[in-house]
């Protein structure tokens, strides 16, 4: 299929969105949920099919030879032109396949997961809109269209986090996500503005006014920034602020753990597999800027490494299964940024891909567990679930092995093995990311290696607490006497108690798990084989950095990372194989100080909340009361009192006769005006 058919990929989800939004409840009433669910999955599947055919039709060239489909005008303002244009190149198509492919699986899963919820249609309305926005983000051929998708996915994320709107906490989590993302967007917007201003100040560099279109902007930026490395750093850092917001890097990661308030399929699709990787996509798209700024690259590496470490540590303090996975996602995103900072952009995208496989799997698996456990998310209530949920258990084991990056060097590895290897190799083998000669990229690589070990430990902890051990800890919850189901009739869950028996989930839910498990096992091997993925994504050497190696020559990295992965798992098994240790039980005062600090994100979230929400509220109230009402109004009303004294004399005239009063005002005014003008012209003569 030709690249010009790309509009089809966008068409299906938007049609799906409109159907769900406008006809959803009616279809549900007439044909039932199965039909409505099928209508939600189908557009995404069709998009995937078309995307696949287009991908097979492209021969994979560098960005310069990318195919751009023009679909009309959007903004023509003075000499700035931003059309609706869409780019078909390896980067965008990789993302299209991930979004629609994983998206189809998760939509399918959600038809089962959400089947007991009210407002089925509303859920899929948002989900289809999300897919559409995400596709705009990756397919848009200029930065402003990327921004459209960027904010669009933020909106859908906001709507889906707050999906269960009756709980005000969900609303707060949703607001937090949107607002923190907007802080990132602030940086991204400034980056866009700076690019426009910079390129506009160079006369006739871009004759057709498409200052933000990749095909004209990127070559222009290359020539302009070569003479102006400071500007490269400025643009690079601003774009990175945007990327950090969307991809949850420190300190803007704050929204992602709270975002787990949304339904689990949302967490899998938006907050693990696709949206949160947008930052990495942006850095890949704009890599020319970062290639020219070692400083910005070094900052990216350092923030990435710190985020990876910070989030991995926090994961140890979490008892909520989704929270562990959320911090794990933050941590893995940190890895992707290490790759991009060190210049191994393809490795970042590689990890985006494999991470989409295994993290979607882990989240969906966790969702299956939560579903089976009456929506209780606390791992301290789990244990021995392998007995009840065999498919979920085995698929999640494979996902865990993938995220732990287990593999035998040179023979075979799970998906994460290859991508993490490429990232750490890229960081350790290159000298691009440095400030004043300090090799921050390489330091980040070593930190990453340590975090890889931590990853294995906390993931083993999750697996053990959930599936292993003999103790079925929910049996300790005293059974409640059910007093009639009628007042719970509209609620989606009954409670977890000792009488509860978990049941394996329905096929619509476990089929996606199996498919994702297969991808988590073989996906990395397939894509890494002979560097298929690398050569597809970046067929030529980078324009500035040239060839970026991901194999450090003097470090036996494969050995080290295997030790980290396997050692971590063994260590984790040693601690947790028997079940929940006593000092991590419900009584959190018995936890070690470190674990409590980890649970509280080392106090960071709380400090930020106090500073912004409480402090900001106080400032706003103070300004309002003291400045607006006190000072400005005081002056105005003081003035009014003086003139009010004069007004008293006239007061008798106005009682009741509104019309007369109005007329008098008009006549009086025009008279006053004429007199004033007349007097002045007399004076002028």
């Amino acid at each position, binding site marked *: 299929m030709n690249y010009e058919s790309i509009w089809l990929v966008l068409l299906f989800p938007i049609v799906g969105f409109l159907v769900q939004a406008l006809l959803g409840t009616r279809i549900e009433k007439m044909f039932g949920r199965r039909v409505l669910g099928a209508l939600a999955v189908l557009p995404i599947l069709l998009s995937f099919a078309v995307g696949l055919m287009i991908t097979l039709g492209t021969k994979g060239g560098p960005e310069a030879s990318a195919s751009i489909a023009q679909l009309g005008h959007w903004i023509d*303002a003075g*000499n700035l032109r931003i059309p609706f244009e869409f780019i078909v190149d390896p980067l965008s198509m990789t993302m299209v396949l991930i979004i629609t492919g994983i998206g189809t699986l998760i939509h399918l899963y959600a038809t089962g997961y959400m089947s007991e919820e009210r407002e089925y249609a509303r859920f899929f309305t948002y989900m289809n809109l999300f897919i559409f926005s995400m596709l705009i983000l990756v397919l848009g051929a200029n930065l402003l269209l990327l921004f459209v998708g960027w904010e669009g996915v933020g909106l859908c994320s906001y709507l889906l986090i707050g999906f269960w709107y009756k709980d005000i906490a969900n609303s707060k989590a949703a607001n937090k996500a949107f607002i923190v993302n907007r802080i990132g967007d602030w940086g991204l917007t400034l980056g866009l503005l*700076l690019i426009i201003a910079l390129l506009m100040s160079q006369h006739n560099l871009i004759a*057709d006014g498409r200052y933000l279109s990749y095909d004209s902007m990127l070559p222009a930026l290359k020539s302009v920034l070569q003479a102006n490395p400071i500007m490269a750093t400025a643009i690079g850092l601003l774009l990175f602020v945007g990327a950090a917001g969307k991809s949850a890097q420190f300190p803007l990661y704050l929204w992602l753990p709270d975002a787990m308030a949304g339904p689990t399929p949302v967490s899998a699709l938006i907050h693990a597999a696709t949206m949160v990787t947008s930052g990495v996509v942006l850095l890949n798209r704009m890599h020319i800027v970062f290639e020219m700024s070692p400083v910005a690259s070094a900052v990216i590496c350092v923030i990435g490494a710190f985020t990876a470490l910070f989030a991995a540590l926090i994961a140890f303090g979490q008892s909520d299964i989704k929270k562990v996975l959320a911090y794990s996602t933050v941590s893995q995103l940190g890895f992707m940024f290490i790759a991009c900072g060190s210049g191994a952009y393809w490795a970042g995208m590689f990890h985006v891909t494999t991470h989409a496989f295994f993290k979607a799997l882990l989240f969906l698996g966790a969702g299956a567990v939560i579903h089976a456990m009456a929506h209780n998310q606390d791992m301290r209530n789990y244990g021995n679930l392998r007995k009840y949920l065999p498919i979920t258990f085995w698929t999640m084991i494979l996902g865990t092995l993938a995220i732990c990056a287990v593999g035998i060097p040179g023979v075979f590895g799970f998906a994460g093995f290859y991508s993490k290897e490429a990232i750490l190799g890229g960081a350790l083998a290159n000298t691009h990311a440095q400030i004043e000669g300090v090799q921050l990229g390489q330091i980040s690589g070593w930190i990453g290696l340590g975090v890889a070990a931590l990853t294995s430990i906390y993931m083993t902890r999750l697996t053990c607490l959930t599936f292993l051990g003999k103790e079925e800890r929910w049996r300790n919850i005293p059974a409640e006497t059910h007093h009639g189901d009628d007042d719970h009739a509209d609620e989606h869950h009954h409670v977890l108690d000792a009488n509860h028996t978990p049941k394996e989930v329905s096929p619509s839910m476990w089929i996606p798990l199996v498919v994702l498990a297969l991808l988590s096992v073989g996906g990395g091997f397939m894509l890494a084989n002979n560097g298929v993925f690398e050569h597809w994504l970046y067929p030529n050497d980078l324009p500035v950095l040239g060839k970026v190696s991901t194999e450090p020559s003097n470090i036996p990295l494969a050995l080290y990372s295997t030790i980290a992965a396997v050692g971590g798992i063994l260590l984790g098994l040693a601690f947790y194989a028997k079940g929940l240790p006593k000092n991590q039980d419900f009584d959190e005062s018995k936890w070690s100080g470190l674990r409590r600090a980890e649970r509280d994100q080392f106090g960071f979230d709380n400090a930020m909340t106090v500073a912004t929400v409480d402090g900001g509220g106080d400032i706003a109230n103070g300004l309002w009361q003291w400045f607006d009402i006190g000072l400005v109004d005081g002056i105005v009303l003081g003035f*009014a009192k003086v003139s009010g004294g004069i007004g008293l004399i006239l007061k008798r005239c106005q009682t009741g006769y509104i019309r007369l009063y109005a007329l008098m005002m008009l006549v009086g005014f025009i008279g006053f005006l004429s007199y004033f003008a007349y007097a002045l*012209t007399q004076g*002028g003569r």
Partner: protein
Amino acid sequence: MMLLSVITFLPLAAALLLMLLPEGKAKTIKQGALVATGLTFLVSLGLLTKFDSGSYAFQLSENHPWITALGVSYHLGVDGISLWLVLLTTFLSVIAVACSLKVETRVRAFMACMLMLESAMLGSFLSLDLVLFFVFFEMTLIPMWLLINIWGGEGRAKAANKFLIYTFAGSIFMLVGIVGLGYLQFQTTGELSFDLVKIQEQVATGKFWAGALTTEPFIFWAFAIALLVKTPAFPLHTWIPDTYAESPTAGPILSSVMVKMGTYGLLRFCLPLFPDTLPNQVPIMVTLAVIGIVYGAIIAAVQPDMRRVMAYSSLSHMGFILLGIFSLTRIGLLGGAYQQLNHGITATILFLLIGFLYQRKGSTLFKDYGGLKSQMPIFAALFLIAMLSSVGLPGTNGFVGEFLAMVGGFNAAYNHQFSLGLIVVAVFGVVLAAVYMLYMFQRMFYGEVKEDNKTLLDLKGPEIALAGVLVVFILWGGLAPNTFMNPMQTSLNATLKMSTGKAGQRPVWTDTDAFIEAKKETTHRLAMTAKVNP
């Protein structure tokens, strides 16, 4: 052909006719007002067929001597800047009347006020004589004051007084400015005139201010203060929270047009008439704009009343318009001018929806609501779309205008017209907009429904239709902004050259070559557009 006069005075004539009807015939009066505004809107649509967007000259102009002894003329004309504002006024007047059909007290006077206000606003946008402009500008004051004072909420007396004092105080400055300009025109040409076109002709050659360069900033500020009060801009904004909170629903809708008289006046007078002092005033104006953006947004977040949130949000949004206009760049000017329309649409739909809520429950305080999403799902969906437009989400109209204003502002700062720090702060206003709007949304829609709100009904057909029309414009303006921006560009470019060109090189509105030159530019633009889309 007196199309402009017809548009301007049709509502006023209707108002007079309504006054002849007996007070008892409330229904007839309401229908009459609706027909009158509808008719005015239809007639104003005729402008689109007659308007040539390739020219920046005033079109369909009517020029008659009025008060000959004072050199005051009755001069009307429309150009790319006023075109959409006229249409916005006629369009939103229909909405304002349509949403006021439930008014029960003094219906006749109410509708007459609305129609009079419409005429006054239309007259302001179309006047090309400063005195005529001033008369119309002041004429808005009376009906608005009455609307607040008679049909307003509990604090109406205080609100009405504040409104009156502010606008009056501003007007005195403007009057001085107008007289000053007339006097200087007399000195320059020996003929007393308040005609904008004639005065600008002298400004363009540089003769006008040649002997009065020290007076120029004073007269600039005389205009600017009056117009900034209207806009409103920081720190002259404190009338707007009371006005919005205390007027009947139609009040804020019409004032969301009325405040455009402020920014329109800045575009029409403060830019082209004061080119020599403009570069010195730009940093001050931009600073006020940016303070307004941030200050308005911060204070909006802690308001207990939806309409007060909207008031402070207006302060914030108008800041972006000011930023765009005073960036003095083509893109910024376009962004600012376009954002005027967008803000009119967005503010109207929000006020409309809040008004529907008020009609149901009689309160706009947050403490009376919560959990409405389950109770009124259609209302929630429409409110969501309106909110997204207000926070400038891409795809809605609010994004395009604000983005272009920011591009303009950034370019100006990049070229050292003012500090880049101002833009960095202004862009942060977009974050703050999300804060106060989402917080508002949360307090209205999330959580459990209050027991006494369980009887609230969702929106009905006519209400959905009314808001739906505005949603169409939100999306249209966001996805195909060229429809609205293209007719503005020629006029805005001319205004920009009048404001930034050197004496002698500034275009004038009466220039006979203007038409040809503009044609060239349009052809060029079309050629470039063709390149984009082969």
